[in-house]
């Protein structure tokens, strides 16, 4: 934006016909950027349909042999993939769908109570950090509504089809993404001493600046810091499977994964659950993007 007009070169009526606000160069740029992103995004919904894993192989048909080998390995363990839109919010959208789908299918009331308690803890953390209630409460309310609605047997209960539709509806999906961004930001700031070294390594900014610029704004991509803190804050384990070109020297290919296991802020024994270390959310990471994976026999 260095070379802005110094001399007013535009005719007055030319400006007037543009918009009542005159000649907004920055806004023009932003609007154009938005419209390009929108056009790209419209080609794919926030959350796609469940596809067989073969559709992943098809993408790399003439691509890297290492990737094709790895997809074969994945094929042994995973049955399907559900893609998300690549708009910088894919981790959160994938997480949202995967979690709500799990609750809808499991009807695990103990898990719902547990997560609700953690949501309230996040709400308190934001208040303590000095966030005005009005800035985040709508996002919290909307998420809690979704959580209620996937419980069956009520007037407001929703089907799996409806969950898919809602996940594709901007007014639901974006609000839930924003809810997760608030929760993530609160957790990072609450434990800023723990996260500081990781954040310094990523961006060389303060924890607060990082949250303001790389967590809270929509469209900012998620890194291991985001995943760790969301997983910790809500107490939900997440498995991330990495599909990249790295290979090991021994010749055979293997697919790495990393389990994000929440630090024990509350012990899960209340529900007698042993699944704590066994993530029910699995995301496929390809550099810059997250999709949802479905294990076989799940």
């Amino acid at each position: 934006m260095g070379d802005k007009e110094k001399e007013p070169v535009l005719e007055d009526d030319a400006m007037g016909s543009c918009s009542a606000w005159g000649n907004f160069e920055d806004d023009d740029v932003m609007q154009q950027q938005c419209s390009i992103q929108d056009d790209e995004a419209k080609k794919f919904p926030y959350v796609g349909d469940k596809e067989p894993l073969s559709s992943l192989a098809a993408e790399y048909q003439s691509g890297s042999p290492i990737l094709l080998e790895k997809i074969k390995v994945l094929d042994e363990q995973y049955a399907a993939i559900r893609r998300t839109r690549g708009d910088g919010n894919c981790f959160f959208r994938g997480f949202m769908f995967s979690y709500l789908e799990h609750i809808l299918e499991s009807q695990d009331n103990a898990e719902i109570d547990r997560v609700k308690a953690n949501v309230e803890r996040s709400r308190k953390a934001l208040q303590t950090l000095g966030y005005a209630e009005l800035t985040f409460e709508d996002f919290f309310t909307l998420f809690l509504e979704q959580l209620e609605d996937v419980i069956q047997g009520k007037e407001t209960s929703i089907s799996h089809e409806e969950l898919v539709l809602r996940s594709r509806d901007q007014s639901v999906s974006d609000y839930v993404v924003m809810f997760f961004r608030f929760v993530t930001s609160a957790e990072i700031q609450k434990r800023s001493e723990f996260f500081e070294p990781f954040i310094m390594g990523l961006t060389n900014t303060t924890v607060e600046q990082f949250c303001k610029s790389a967590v809270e704004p929509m469209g900012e991509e998620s890194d291991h810091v985001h995943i760790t803190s969301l997983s910790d804050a809500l107490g939900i384990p997440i498995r991330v499977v990495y599909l990249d070109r790295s290979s090991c020297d021994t010749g055979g290919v293997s697919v790495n994964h990393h389990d994000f296991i929440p630090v024990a802020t509350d012990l899960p024994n209340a529900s007698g659950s042993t699944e704590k270390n066994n993530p029910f959310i699995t995301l496929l990471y390809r550099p810059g993007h997250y999709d949802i994976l479905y294990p076989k026999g799940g």
Partner: protein
Amino acid sequence: MQASRARLFKEYKEVQREKTADPDIQLVCDDSNIFKWTALIKGPSETPYEGGVFQLAFSVPEQYPLQPPQVRFLTKIFHPNVHFKTGEICLDILKNAWSPAWTLQSVCRAIIALMAHPEPDSPLNCDSGNLLRSGDVRGYQSMARMYTRLAAMPKKG
């Protein structure tokens, strides 16, 4: 649309409740349109804008608060990050660093902070930016002060 209206209404109530909390900012909603606001902000002390009162116009999009409000100066101001003709403001939180954690009130505070701490390396007003970048603080300050007197202070009778 409904969500943005509800949010703006909450901000409106908060502004009414906290009217005295921030004497440097006077934020007013248009009588007939909750998506249009104006603000009067006081130029920060120990800056060339001290003593001036600056008017801002807010236009809030239907996607608010997922998208930022558009804000511009209605009062003429000589500042590296404000377009001299249109009043457009170059501030990251009004662009890609926006998040719903901001409110119209806190945006005003951020703009006051920008007035006190210009960023000459991302100028919308190159003349102003160049003065600061070349180290001519006195030149910048006297230009800024002159426009503050001309445009942001009540005319002496």
